[in-house]
């Protein structure tokens, strides 16, 4: 065997897993490429999903499809409100779980974990059964979606903030107490700034979960239409290319948030 071929095989053996991994990443990104491509699609027919030509019209006329922008507004409002409440309630729970000792802690843990392990269709149908049995079938809409979103975001917030809190050295708080800080000062000057990245991550996760949820929302929405519900409805009639514009924008916004976070982390680390 020639040296080159041998070296080639050795290189391949060493990098095979990496190559496989990159192929899998390509598979995960394939739909993103399609979403970006289709956002420039000059669609000729509503019935077939093909690329018919390049246009910027979808980007300049996002709100053209009926109800698209209204549904976006609804999703943003519900996402923001649900994120605020879920982050608040979940952070309190995470502090209780990590910094307090009480009876029934492990059952509380299981109790918080369960909603995450329940399929969405079951969570959604349980809530619908509750609302209908409580005589609220007529008021299904914005607020019932809000209630549902806070519920499924809550567990994710607790888990995220808990992970951050558990990684902190409790002696930092002890030190503050030793230096005569009272509990309030200890919390705001020491605990909170250290846990804040975890809380922020939890809030971002909540927002994206809420903004993207379809199965639970669809069961409890009544006449209200969120963005995913708009996409679902549109998919039955022919897909307006504008939803791919929204998809592309969501991707770009999320990437910007990740980049800014990473850069500020690096700057802090460099200091």
């Amino acid at each position, binding site marked *: 065997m020639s040296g080159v071929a041998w070296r080639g095989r050795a290189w391949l053996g060493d990098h095979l897993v990496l190559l496989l991994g990159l192929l899998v990443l390509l598979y*995960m990104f394939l739909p993103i490429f399609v979403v970006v491509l289709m956002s420039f699609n000059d669609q000729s027919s509503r019935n077939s999903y093909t690329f018919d030509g390049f246009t910027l019209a979808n980007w300049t006329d996002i709100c053209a499809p009926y109800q698209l922008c209204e549904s976006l507004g609804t999703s943003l409002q519900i996402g923001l409100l649900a994120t605020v409440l879920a982050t608040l309630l979940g952070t309190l729970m995470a502090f209780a779980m990590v910094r307090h000792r009480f009876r029934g802690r492990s059952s509380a843990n299981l109790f918080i974990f369960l909603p995450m392990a329940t*399929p969405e*269709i079951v969570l959604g149908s*349980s809530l619908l*059964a509750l609302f209908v049995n409580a005589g609220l079938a007529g008021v299904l809409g914005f607020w019932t979606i809000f209630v549902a979103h806070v519920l499924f975001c809550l567990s994710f917030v607790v888990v995220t903030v808990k992970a951050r809190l558990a990684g902190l050295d409790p002696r930092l708080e002890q030190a503050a107490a030793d230096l005569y800080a009272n509990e309030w000062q200890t919390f705001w000057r020491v605990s909170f700034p250290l846990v804040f990245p975890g809380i922020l991550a939890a809030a971002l996760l909540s927002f994206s979960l809420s903004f993207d949820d379809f199965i639970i929302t669809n069961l409890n929405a009544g006449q209200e239409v969120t963005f995913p519900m708009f996409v679902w409805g549109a998919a039955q009639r022919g897909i307006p290319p504008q939803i791919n514009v929204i998809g592309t924008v969501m*991707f770009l916004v999320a*990437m910007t948030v990740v980049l800014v976070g990473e850069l500020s982390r690096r700057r802090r680390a460099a200091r």
Partner: protein
Amino acid sequence: MSAAGHVPSLGPTEAQLTGRPDPASRRSGWSGYLLLLPGGLWLLLFFVVPTVTLMATSLYDPAGSLQTGYAMTGHWQNYVEALGDYAPQFVRSLVYALLATVACIVLGFPLAYAIAFKAGRWKNLMLVAVIAPFFTSFLVRTLSWQYILGDNEALVGFLRSIHVLAPDGYLLATPFAVVTGLTYNFLPFMVLPLYASLEKLDPRLIEAGADLYASPVTTFRTVTLPLAMPGLVAGTLLTFIPSAGDYINSELLGNPRTRMIGNEIQDLFGAGDYPTAASLSVTLMAAIVVLVFVYVRRAGTEELL
């Protein structure tokens, strides 16, 4: 007491060793409950109570309707009928979810392994790349598979030309498309826990396996795999459970013969047949709970639950 300053970082056990309460045990009793109260009430009101209500609804007399109200008659017949009428959809859901989970393991393991051991300084970037597609709408991404797998697009054309598909063969609206969509949508839930487990694994253990003349396969089977088990189990649950309850992929990428149990539950609720829908939902949950317990038992990772 005098040793307090000399005990190194032992976490929660410090309190027992030194007799000095650390913050974790300093505040015991009611203040912990107070912090748990608002969130706990939300979970109680909107998770526990609804679950009980769902179970009750599944036993209502199906003769009622939303307008006239339902009578609670302990109608166990709902379950018999639901299981009789919807057995194929149940089986299909579990089979598709199983196939998607296996595909996620096959695709997710090399990726998680590459990120943990081979990515070097690209590690963070690759991790971001795993979660990045997450941030675009689930539905919009799933719809783009309609294009990728479409009859007149490049992939089908290529597969026809190399005779993997018959000249009139297609991918969209097949079980294959549904499982592809499920795999795609839940793959990050497999990669992330797997990565978390592999990252903790000391690469020197793998080297040691090679030093002791174990083949790569033996090293993988006896060293890497057992140590990756917690991540594998967590990833399996996180992909299997949502796949089994999903109906988006089946609806957008499948055909009427690929309907899963989620499709039926959604449609029955939409049609106002609450008792049947509720009994299907309860049955799905029960099936998943049983499968998860059996699986976790067999995998020997009870402490995860």
